[in-house]
């Protein structure tokens, strides 16, 4: 290996012999760029020795042409004029590698995404632009230098942020694969939103019945460390070794001793709104979050506790000490991070027309809690105003979704869950009239169409058209809107109105994004690198996202993503080391004046001043963005693969200046 590398270097130091390969990409490029003209032009550029075109350059045949030219024609630089390096650079680099030509002696010119596609109406100028881009690529290629990948060791442990269904699946898969996993959950118990659901579509499984065994599995898996009632305080480091600081909120209960008997809650005199039941009933200041909680441990709500100490006296195992106030901090290192922070629900108060203040106007999650046997009404559907059974229920869809004034996206799950509610209620109470007011029914998943049909067969009525307003009439509600099919205004006199509220990115997403150096998109959810091909990867290597924190999702998709993220993290960690591109900054010490301008500018905190009076680049953190290199007043920072010379040559080619 070492021998061949030194041989490679010798070849590279000789005069550049560049091969230019122009791809038709079917008609994607050839449809608006005159390939023949680009080929003929390329032959006239300095240092170019071979020019060829191909219908699909990324095909095996196309790659073999390049290989042959490297071997037989002796070309030592490759320029491909084709599509985006984001998707195809890797293929070409591998081809170069297989011929012993250093893979960084490859330059990709994108004459599709920013050339043939946008300029499809102007063939002449598209062709001219393609020529210029190829020229700049060739100029840059003549200055490319061979580089070697760096190896980085990776810890075989992972952090999962958020203990909902997505996080639980990710954690279990990783733990089964032998990795050490830490789950950090904000609430006292794991389970997330799914723990609040009664039944789940499209099979009507009882949510608790399918979730609880997985939660128990988490607590029984020795290599999963569960940190509930905890939040991420700080994350530093890089792929392979992230240093994590977790704030464990003070519970005032010693969980080693607490046996989850619940006696403390019984004696506690303080009643507060129960968030788990959507504030429809009360819990105590010391409480266990819900009946299947994992861990089944009590927590004191410090903001509500009156310090009467009744619980302390009652606890038979002496687990409670209300004088404990300070949060604890736990620190550990992990090789990768999976973010599964889930979602929050849209606040229906923002849609004043739906009169959420009225007790009989509720959200779908509130209805879900009512339908649940362990909920505030023990599974009975009652009007909150007077506890009477409703005659008519109206479901209003897209509350806070598909609406430029709130969230312009579709929340994806509301159609099917409203159908679920109406259907389950119709089975239990056939005499209640159910109306679903929708604008489009999007029941897209496997088995969902059948689910929708069964709701129709049970007599649930579907009315297309937005609801404009909900008004009180006597002790009932008038739901006014449009019926698209009738072409008339309608009003339904209902006893209960259920708002299908949108899914939104959870509180704290922005803060966590900043901490982890990952992006969010315009909807506020975490952003994946590529919506189709890299759905769980983020722009920080080694940090993955899964579930509803990436965008609205139902349980099957959230689980799939949790498992996908576990797989991605596992393939990253399994070897214990990874190769990283050498695209980082290098300090030329002799030129460096230690002004530390670079240190203050680096977004990734990759450059620091050391005790030995040196500037040091952490190559694992450095993204090779080049900000430091551009800002260095003495030109002491070289950005690998984007050196000043390489960039200057590109500019020269484009501006027609002299070398």
């Amino acid at each position, binding site marked *: 290996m070492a021998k061949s590398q030194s041989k490679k270097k010798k070849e590279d130091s000789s005069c550049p012999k560049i091969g230019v390969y122009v791809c038709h990409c079917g008609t994607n490029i050839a449809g608006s760029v005159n390939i023949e003209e680009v080929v003929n032009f390329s032959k006239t550029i300095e240092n170019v020795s071979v020019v060829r075109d191909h219908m699909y350059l990324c095909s095996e045949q196309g790659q073999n042409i390049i290989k042959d030219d490297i071997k037989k024609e002796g070309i030592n630089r490759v320029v491909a004029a084709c599509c985006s390096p984001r998707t195809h650079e890797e293929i070409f680099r591998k081809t170069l590698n297989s011929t012993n030509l250093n893979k960084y002696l490859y330059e990709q010119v994108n004459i599709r995404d920013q050339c043939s596609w946008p300029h499809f109406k102007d063939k002449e100028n598209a062709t001219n632009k393609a020529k210029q881009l190829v020229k700049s690529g060739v100029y840059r290629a003549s200055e490319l230098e061979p580089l070697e990948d760096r190896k980085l060791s990776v810890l075989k442990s992972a952090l999962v942020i958020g203990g909902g269904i997505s996080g639980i699946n990710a954690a279990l898969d990783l733990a089964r694969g032998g990795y050490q996993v830490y789950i950090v959950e904000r609430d006292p118990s794991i389970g997330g939103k799914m723990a609040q659901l009664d039944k789940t579509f499209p099979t009507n499984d009882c949510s608790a019945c399918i979730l609880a065994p997985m939660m128990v599995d988490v607590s029984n898996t020795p290599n999963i460390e569960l940190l509930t009632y905890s939040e991420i305080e700080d994350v530093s480091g890089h792929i392979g070794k992230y240093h994590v600081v977790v704030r464990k909120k003070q519970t005032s209960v010693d969980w080693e001793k607490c046996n989850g008997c619940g006696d403390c809650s019984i004696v506690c005199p303080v009643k507060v709104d129960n968030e788990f039941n959507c504030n429809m009933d009360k819990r105590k200041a010391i409480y266990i979050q819900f009946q299947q909680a994992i861990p089944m441990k009590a927590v004191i709500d410090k903001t509500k506790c009156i310090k009467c100490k009744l619980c302390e006296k009652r606890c038979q195992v002496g687990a409670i000490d209300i004088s404990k106030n300070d949060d604890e901090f736990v620190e550990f290192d992990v090789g990768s991070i999976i973010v599964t922070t889930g979602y929050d629900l849209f606040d229906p108060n923002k849609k004043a027309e739906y009169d959420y203040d009225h007790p009989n106007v509720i959200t779908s999650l509130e209805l879900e809690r009512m339908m649940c046997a362990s909920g505030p009404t023990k599974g009975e559907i009652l009007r909150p105003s007077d506890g009477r059974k409703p*005659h*008519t229920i109206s479901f209003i869809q897209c509350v806070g979704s598909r609406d430029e004034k709130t969230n312009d996206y579709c929340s994806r799950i509301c159609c099917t869950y409203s159908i679920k509610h109406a259907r389950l209620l119709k089975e239990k109470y056939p005499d209640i*009239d159910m*109306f679903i007011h929708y604008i489009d*029914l999007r029941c897209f998943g496997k088995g969902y169409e059948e689910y*929708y*049909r069964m709701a*129709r*067969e049970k*007599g649930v*009525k*579907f*009315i*297309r058209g937005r609801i404009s307003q909900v008004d009180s009439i006597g002790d009932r509600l008038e739901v*006014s809107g449009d*019926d698209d*099919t*009738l*072409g*008339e*205004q*309608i*009003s*339904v*006199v209902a006893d209960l109105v259920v708002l299908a509220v949108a899914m939104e990115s959870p509180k704290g997403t922005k803060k966590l994004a900043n901490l982890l150096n990952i992006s969010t998109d315009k909807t506020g959810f975490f952003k994946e690198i590529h919506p189709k091909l890299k759905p769980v990867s983020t722009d920080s290597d080694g940090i993955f996202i899964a579930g509803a924190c990436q965008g609205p999702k139902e349980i099957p998709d959230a689980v799939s993503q949790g498992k996908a993220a576990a797989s991605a993290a596992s393939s990253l960690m399994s070897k214990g080391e990874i190769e990283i591109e050498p695209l980082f900054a290098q300090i030329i010490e002799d030129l460096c004046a230690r002004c530390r301008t670079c240190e203050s500018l680096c977004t990734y905190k990759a450059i620091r001043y050391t005790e030995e009076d040196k500037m040091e680049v952490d190559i694992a953190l450095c993204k090779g963005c080049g900000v430091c290199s551009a800002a260095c007043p003495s030109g002491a920072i070289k950005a690998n693969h984007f050196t000043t010379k390489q960039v200057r040559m590109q500019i020269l080619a484009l501006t027609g200046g002299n070398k």
Partner: protein
Amino acid sequence: MKIVLNETNKALVNKVIEYGGKRVYECFQCGMCASGCPVASDTDHKIKRTMHQVLLGLDEQILDKKAIWLCTTCFMCLERCPQNAGPTDVVFALRRISAENGIIPEAQIEVANNIYHLGHAVTVQKGITLRAKVKAPPLTTAGSDKKYILEIQKVVDSTHAGKLLKIKKDWKPKGDDVIACD
């Protein structure tokens, strides 16, 4: 006009199902029925809307407008409906319900009486005269012989169709037609 839905009328949909529109609940308002309907563009017969009205129990809207009687029963909607909701079956059921409520257009009454008394939905006297004039063989249809007509009348009299369709014993056909074989 604003339509108020209060305690929906389930009687209509139940009756439609009883009278043969068994799959009316399957309708999800895709509009396939209405898009191919040969009479929709020129009449008030909007089958997609009618299906929806049945589900919402808006019987007055359907029955008062009498549009269901304009359906040609070509069965195109029934053939094409992706949910097999049977729109034509629903129309038949609605016509029966409508007739039971005494709501039946004059033209339908005339057709029914024509069949009952002449054996034909439309009168054919002019044709019979013309055929005789050109020495063509005489008609051999239900209306050509009294015995066939008597059989038709027997069938109608044995059901309550005669009452529903307002069959009159002393009915006289319009125009120059005469009761066959009299």
